[in-house]
């Protein structure tokens, strides 16, 4: 065992396991443990997980901007038939409209033919041939519904369960409940990529820990500069010299602790050790050159290109290293105009890599306990939008599609339906909070039990309205 590994073992023996757990020695963490009831001082909250664990980790492929369900997973022949005709008023009366406010609303036919794929016969358009090839792994939900029609609040809702800022993100909640499995990496990692038309802005709020302790926040893994913020040692400071500094800091901190008995000091020492380990582990993690050319080709990426495909490959590497919650944001789905052109370009970049991720995980035996989620903050209108260039579709919140795969999901299922024009989710509607409840359920968490008191309320990811686990798509 290397000296470093020995140090790490010794440290882990002393302080519990890993990133999320290190701070458990602090009073604050003890307080949470006490608040949640009896149980061992394990990694996450005592008593968690309380349900059978179907997934140990999550890879959330967040399609920022709002992909059209009508060009991907939700065939609507009736919409094609009414192409160019006024959208029947019965669908849109009293509904919230985004950029099409005050404009003539006309039906806009789905722009790509659907095909049936696999044994399941999932209907998916031709823009997703690779996803088609793994169709039998996917549970498609065609009846998603959300409450926000603009990107910013819809993103906040999809990630935190509320439109009010300052609440913990999904990944933070999961880490808070279950702790981390990674020894030398953060338990919640975020990667971003962008493509195509007007990439919509995203915000730190979407992976922040809100009122939960800061250790549960998502840590961005960046494609340029230092992969983790401030990971790079200063110029002229070799790894050894950095270790000298950290060792001196820890030694002096320990000495100080004997004088003042401050429980935070032990945590501080642990965090410096963790920081040091990250400086060693992260460069290896992000170095895709160690992957075979065949693997790079399969995902469709080149090392260092910062693409969604690269991020998918990194997601697999993170999953292998025990990272609990991995979230990829791909900014490129806001297709108000030139839908045909932009969605095709975008699909090319996402389709192959997503399918590669699914099959790669499967071959490595990781798909069974990795929950994959694919979807955006909302869908797009059945009506055309013509502001410039070719037609596109506006934001749409009352019906859209997402898919789940892996981690206890029944592949090949198709759940729910929108009406004949793809406007309202009408059958087995799945609200954002139902999706959250389902994700937590697969991780072994009863969503009603994952709560923390804040401003007088027992706040939960799933909020105060009743939320339902989508059992129909579970294996």
């Amino acid at each position: 065992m290397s000296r470093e590994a020995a140090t790490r073992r010794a440290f882990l023996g002393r302080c519990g396991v890993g990133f999320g757990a290190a701070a458990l020695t602090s009073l604050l963490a003890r307080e949470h443990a006490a608040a949640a009831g009896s149980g061992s001082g394990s990694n996450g909250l005592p008593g968690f997980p309380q349900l059978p664990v179907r997934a140990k980790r999550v890879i959330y492929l967040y399609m920022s901007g709002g992909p059209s369900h009508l060009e991907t997973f939700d065939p609507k022949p009736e919409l094609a038939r009414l192409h160019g005709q006024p959208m029947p008023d019965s669908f849109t009366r009293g509904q919230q409209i985004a950029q099409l406010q005050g404009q003539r609303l006309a039906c806009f036919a789905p722009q790509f033919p659907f095909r049936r794929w696999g044994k399941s016969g999932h209907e998916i358009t031709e823009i997703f041939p690779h996803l088609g090839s793994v169709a039998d792994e996917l549970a498609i939900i065609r009846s998603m519904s959300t409450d926000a029609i603009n990107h910013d609040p819809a993103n906040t809702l999809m990630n935190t369960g509320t439109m009010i800022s300052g609440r913990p993100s999904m990944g933070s909640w999961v880490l808070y409940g279950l702790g981390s499995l990674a020894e030398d990496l953060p338990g919640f990692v975020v990667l971003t990529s962008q493509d195509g038309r007007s990439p919509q802005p995203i915000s730190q709020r979407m992976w922040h820990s809100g009122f939960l302790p800061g250790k549960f926040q998502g840590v961005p893994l960046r494609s340029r500069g230092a992969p983790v913020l401030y990971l790079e040692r200063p110029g002229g400071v070799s790894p050894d010299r950095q270790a000298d500094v950290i060792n001196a800091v820890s030694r002096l901190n320990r000495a100080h602790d004997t004088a003042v008995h401050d429980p935070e000091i032990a945590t501080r020492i642990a965090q410096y050790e963790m920081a040091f380990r990250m400086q060693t582990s992260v460069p290896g993690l992000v170095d895709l050159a160690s992957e075979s050319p065949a693997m790079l080709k399969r995902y469709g990426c080149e090392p260092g290109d910062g693409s969604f495909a690269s991020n998918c490959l990194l997601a697999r590497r993170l999953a292998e290293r025990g990272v609990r919650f991995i979230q990829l944001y791909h900014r490129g789905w806001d297709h108000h105009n030139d839908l045909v052109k932009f969605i095709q370009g975008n699909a090319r970049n996402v389709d192959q890599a997503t399918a590669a991720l699914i099959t790669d995980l499967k071959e490595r035996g990781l798909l069974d306990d990795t929950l994959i989620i694919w979807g955006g903050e909302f869908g797009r209108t059945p009506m055309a939008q013509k502001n410039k260039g070719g037609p596109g579709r506006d934001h749409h919140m009352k019906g859209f599609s997402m898919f789940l795969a892996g981690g206890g999901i029944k592949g090949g299922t198709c759940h729910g339906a929108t009406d004949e024009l793809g406007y309202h989710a009408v059958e087995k509607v799945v609200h954002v909070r139902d999706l959250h409840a389902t994700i937590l359920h697969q991780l072994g968490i009863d969503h009603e039990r994952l709560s923390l008191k804040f401003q007088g309320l027992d706040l939960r990811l799933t909020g105060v309205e009743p939320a339902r686990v989508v059992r129909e798509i579970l294996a």
Partner: protein
Amino acid sequence: MTRSALLLLLVAAFAVTSPTAGLHAAVPKPVDYNRDVQPILSDKCFHCHGPDEKTREAKLRLDNFAGATADHDGTRALSPGKPEESEIHHRIHSTDKEEVMPPPKSHKTLTAAEKDILDRWIAAGGEYQQHWAYVPPVKVSIPAGVNPIDHLVRQRLATLNLKPSPEADRVTLIRRLSFDLLGLPPTPAEVDAFVKDTAPDAWNRLVAKMLASQHYGERMAIGWLDVVRFADTIGYHSDNPRNIWPYRDYVIRAFNTNKPYDRFTIEQLAGDLVENPSLETRVGSAFNRLLLTTEEGGAQAKDYEARYVTDRVRAVGTVWLGSTIGCCQCHDHKYDPLTSKDFYSLGAFFADIQEPIIGKREPGLPVPDETQAKELERLGSVRTALQTEYDGPHRSVEAAFTLWENEALQQVTANPWTFLRPAKAESLGKAKLTVQADESVLASGGKPDKDTYLLEAPGSGQTVTGLRIEALPDGSLPAGGPGRASNGNFVLSEVVVQVKRAGGTTASVPLAGAVASFEQGGFAAATAIDGDKASGETGWAVLPQVNQPQQLVVALAAPLTVAKGDTLLLELRQNHGKGSHTLGRFRISTTADQAAAKRVGSLPFPREITDILKTPADKQNPAQRSQLAAYHKSIVPELAELRQRLAAADKARKDYEEALPKCLVSVSLPTPRVVRILPRGNFLDESGPEMMPAVPAVLPQPTMEGNRRPNRLDLARWIMSRENPLTARVFVNRLWKQFFGTGLSKVLDDLGAQGEPPVNPLLLDWLAVEFADNGWNVKELVRLIVSSETYRQSSVADPAALQADPYNRELARQSRWRLDAELVRDNALATSKLLVPTIGGPSVKPYQPEGYWENLNFPTRTYQNDSGASQYRRGLYTWWQRSFLHPSLVAFDAPSREECTAERNRSNIPQQALVLLNDPTYVEAARALAARILAECQGSIDQRVIWAWREVLSRHPTPEEQSTLKALFEKHRAEYLKDPEAAQALLKTGLAAAPPDQPAPELAAWTSVARVLLNLHETITRS
């Protein structure tokens, strides 16, 4: 009971009750409703049996006596004095899943201790009390000559068998006070002076000195800026900048000048409505503009109007009322006696705030400093003087008026040009063309890069020898026009003239020549008729003479008669293809005069002047006479020079004012927006009743004279009225946290039922009343707190003390905690002496990792860190980008300030280590500290280590500490001597130049030592 048994019990009780409960939860004494019972009922029962009627189960409410004792088919939830006859008693002890309360599906359970409290409460009569925070605070009497804080703290300690800790050593004391009052460490000289000063009033003098420091205001501002959610950007979506920093400086100034808290409050809520509002009070009213706003396309105004109401109500709730009234957006409060009606009527106070609901914020009020105000006044008086001079009288001009009038009338009469009113004006691009009353055509709407305008005018039998195209300025156009390009320019690529005969045939009309009032170099008039209809490379343009009328006169090759029934067709092609170089406003005229068609004539008079001129002088009214005279004055050559000077002075003043710092402030709309109760918070549902401004019904109501609509000033006055039981408690409680690490009631933003009854209610109330009695004197309150012996206690807790009161709620010692994010930075900059201690000014941009803003858009942004003095400012001046706050601030728990934050987390995470180790700010600070070690301490390595240790930690190092650093220094010096390039590389971190006279390996090795010092837990801890 032995002491240790009691402790065990206390710890056990702590572990099983709410994590916010203090030691007092297990103190055996008569049950007190507010302290003991209400927290249990609220948390475990009110959700279904509380104030919210809509979710109430079994029609039973337990939040008041009448509800709890009401008869339900012969049974009562509460039968006073008789637990056996009380349903509560039976239900909480039941083992039947169907019966037991709280029900299993709530995931709430009662501990044995809690059940016992409820039973004892019922047995004692089951009395309810008004919630503690709604009962006006009163002062208990304090024996003369003692500090009231010490008296009230020790009174409790005595009942708990706890003893106060001894006073901390003097080094710790001055560090503590310095961080708490200034947010900066003391210098070693200040430490020495205080340690040596053994006079009895040494502490009081130290306190007074710090309270007088300008840095006090900065320190106090940090917490306030969190709670009001001050930030430099709008928050939603594009998260663009807005002008707001003068408000931050207002807050700093308010604390430094010790502005009474009532005045401070009133100015923020209603600084525009107070009597004689000043620049100062108006800037204070920026408070109402601090909320999140959006520029997102497709956002609905009503949606965001509703969000702004809720945002502001939450703010008032958090900042002043310590109330979670924000919960009432969708329903009546589940725990507190607050209703949706209360929520929306509180929101209605802010319905008058003038603001764009969607879109970019206005620049705001100019906020000159003293020097700037003087300069602005000077420029104003220069302008006024010129205006007076222009106003006249000017005898000779007046004398010449009649003559001019006659000539002008002749010009009008003899005018060979006739305006052509197009019957149709169309853009082939996306522009909207509107024919205006003066026959000019104005373009608006879509702004394509290329466009062709098609104009049609019916014939009237006229003969046409030439066409005139006037390009006219207009206020709606960029840079005043006449073009639609951002600089006001246009390129008219080609003019095509055709005539459509009554018979249906269309013939093109050959053109002979073109002249213009002005030609931009390379864009001559003639190229507009060169026959090249497609190219965008040539054409007529007028830069830089934009924002004034220009004309192009086109001569026809032969006179053309346009008969009745014929149509004159005109195409204006604009093919430049970049930046919308198209005409913004233009007018077509025709002439039958051969000469006129070949030259640029005098500019036509404005239409209204022409009309007046055509009216016989004796029929003109006085207004018309003076309009005519004013027009004459505006063009008469004699005054040209004066006019130019006046225009220049006007521009100088305007430019100066525009360049001044601006701040969004509150301005009232003449008619406030309508605020309705939105059922379930749904803004599409307009069925709810309209709400007038009012304060929550459960609280004492304001007295209002007359029958007018209450406004923000009324709200502010009510908040600060002595009848309001919350305001003083909320502020005192928050302030307490700054000096002891935790509020007296731990939940700073909720003094309601779900908050925590104060550990020491007598103390909180005494301080609250004292604060108000003292004229809301903040410095006096601070002085009172830090003067106490309780404040000066040691913060070292031995394991037993830690066990007895782990959270130090009883204050038998001081607390220790990590410095706030901004102060971590300030401390490093101060000890390295890089700090530039300027107070106030625009927000600054410290080093930030490249690409950190890559996920922002509309527009995309590149962060450019400041250089020079702005790089070394205190942390509170850091540019506060809400969606991506500076990562080193985030690492240390600074909030994004999207929401009001009364309490920051204090986490201890690896990112903090990474920041202190690798952020160039801290490496540079270490470098600068190393340079100071070499320059300011001439001695042995040991002496230098001691010197450096004192600079950073104020105390002497122990021998072990000293030898650890010495060993590190010697090792690294040896390494850097062998590797001078590495030393150079380290010394290049940051913008500050390394002193050239110091040996690099030495400096680099001391930098390692300084890095260790800046990374120590003790360095970033206030103890």
